[in-house]
């Protein structure tokens, strides 16, 4: 019996060796190495890594390009707020379950499932001005035909517009995801609450305010966390749609460029450490704020 018990303590490790090994190798070791590289001037190839203290970090603080790319996250964060608001509205409306709503739901969610490069190319073509064809692209065409022709601009060629265009793509692509989360959590609210509200003649606004809103607090908090860390770590949309050009570069694009095109692994690691620090800080702050917000409805 004693032997059997001991055996049961060893067996789980047989199953965990590989998963934990990979976790350590591919997540924890890189994090540790990142800190180690960040205090050197390593180029990624040289066998010798020269220790240079905090000079890389000092350089980050004095590099306006980096600050500019970090500031670009603000556009995407603004976009996420729009996205969450829109998703919340649409989820509430769709939860009424009128006829044909499943079709609408499909149209709202499908962009989230599309290949990221395909999405980028769709918008590259949509945003273009006259050039590759004799007339301008689809977006200009639409604006002209609904009488908003004076808004036409170089969507990705104008550095004061490009980040709005790209943030718009981000809303188009990711809104469906928030919608699914909200809808799922609205549907898990006890239906008796809605029945009771109807008996009490509560109108739709009251139902939203006093049943739906408290019921989806947790998922709203989660969406906000994802929004902040997501907008700091934006990469694919500006990289593929615009190549990070015209002032659309983000922190991650800068880090990639410095690490893999310029071969300054030490400096890039310092950037990555800063990025990780910001993400962890934001997550931590939000988790503390929303900690006591878990209202139990039933």
């Amino acid at each position, binding site marked *: 019996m004693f032997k059997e018990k001991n055996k049961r*303590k060893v*067996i*789980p*490790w047989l*199953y*965990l060796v590989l*998963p934990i090994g990979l*976790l350590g190798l*591919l*997540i*924890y*070791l*890189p*994090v540790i190495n*990142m800190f180690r*590289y960040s205090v050197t001037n390593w180029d990624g190839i040289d066998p010798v890594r020269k220790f240079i203290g905090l000079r890389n970090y000092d350089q980050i603080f004095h590099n306006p390009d980096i600050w500019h790319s970090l500031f670009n996250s603000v556009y995407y964060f603004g976009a996420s707020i729009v996205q969450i608001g829109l998703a919340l509205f*649409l989820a509430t*409306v769709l939860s009424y379950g*009128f006829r044909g709503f499943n079709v*609408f739901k*499909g*149209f*709202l*969610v*499908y*962009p989230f*499932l*599309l*290949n990221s490069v*395909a999405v980028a*190319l*769709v918008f590259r*073509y949509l945003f273009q001005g006259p050039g*590759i*064809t004799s*007339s301008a*692209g*689809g977006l200009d*065409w*639409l604006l002209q035909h609904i009488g908003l022709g004076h808004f036409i601009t170089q969507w990705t060629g104008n550095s004061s517009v490009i980040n709005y265009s790209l943030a718009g793509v981000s809303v*188009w692509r990711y809104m469906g995801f928030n919608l*699914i*989360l909200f809808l799922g959590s609205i549907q898990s609210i006890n239906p008796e609450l809605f029945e009771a509200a109807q008996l009490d003649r509560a109108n739709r606004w009251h139902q939203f305010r006093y049943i739906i809103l408290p019921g989806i607090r947790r998922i709203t908090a*989660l969406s906000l966390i994802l929004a902040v*860390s997501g907008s700091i*770590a934006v*990469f*694919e949309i500006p990289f*593929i749609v615009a190549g990070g050009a015209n002032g659309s570069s983000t922190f*991650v694009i800068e880090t990639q460029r410095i*690490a*893999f095109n310029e071969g300054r*692994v030490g400096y890039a*690691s310092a*950037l*990555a450490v800063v*990025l*990780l620090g910001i*993400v962890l800080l934001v*997550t931590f702050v939000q988790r503390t704020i929303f900690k006591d917000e878990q209202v139990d409805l039933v």
Partner: protein
Amino acid sequence: MKRLDAFKVTIYIILAVICFAMVFPLIPLIFAAFKDHTEFYDSGPLAPPKNWFNFHNFEIAWSQGDLAHAFFNTGILLSVSLVGTILIGTMTAYAIDRFDFRGKKAVVWAFLCATLVPGVTTQVATFQIISKLNLYNTRWSAILLYTGTDIISIYIFLQFMQSIPKALDESARIDGAGHFTIYFRIILPLLRPAIATVVIIKGIAYYNDFYTAYLYMPDPNLGTVSTSLYRFIGPFSASWQVICAATLLVIIPTIVVFLALQKFIYKGLSAGAVK
């Protein structure tokens, strides 16, 4: 006659407008894919193609743009990574849920904390590890990264396994089954719904991933659907109608899968996000 419900009508109008905005970006691209070079240049973006059966652009994209090869490569990555992710996820969940052992809490914490580190932040250092393992420019780089850093699947399996009664294991053990038989013959088959969820959400994620393949497999022979499509930008920039056709070819499988598995996809997406 029912009274026309103004509230309902308003809602339908709002939904229709928003859905139009969701579909509109694709329309010029779909039209362009069927146009020949001169028609593409001369006609407006919202002018439907003259001939809906002009598949010339698709043929060029498929053969010259090497999309055929790209689908093959993505297919390999997808199937191997899914098997790997299912095995690793279920093994981890089995060990954590079915056994009591010293260090269990630490193990759970190690996995939980790892979710706080966004993958995109650590690639500078991960890249060095992949190259030291001599996996740069091999399929194994992507497979290893997909399977080894996937904590969401572990979480999904763990959640589901908690609902499988432990009495099943016990009675099997009394019948003389070993731990591996229990894992492989009892737990794994019962996890089928969770496996389906993981296959759907991870399948979509792998098919759509650009970053991993772009960074670790620049060799055009290993090009995935994403990176091969990305490589259309240079050589085909004088014939955007071909790029449009290629893009459409990449989008179509997703739409087909979405239409077929809509319900499961909605479920899978919420299961994967709520941690």
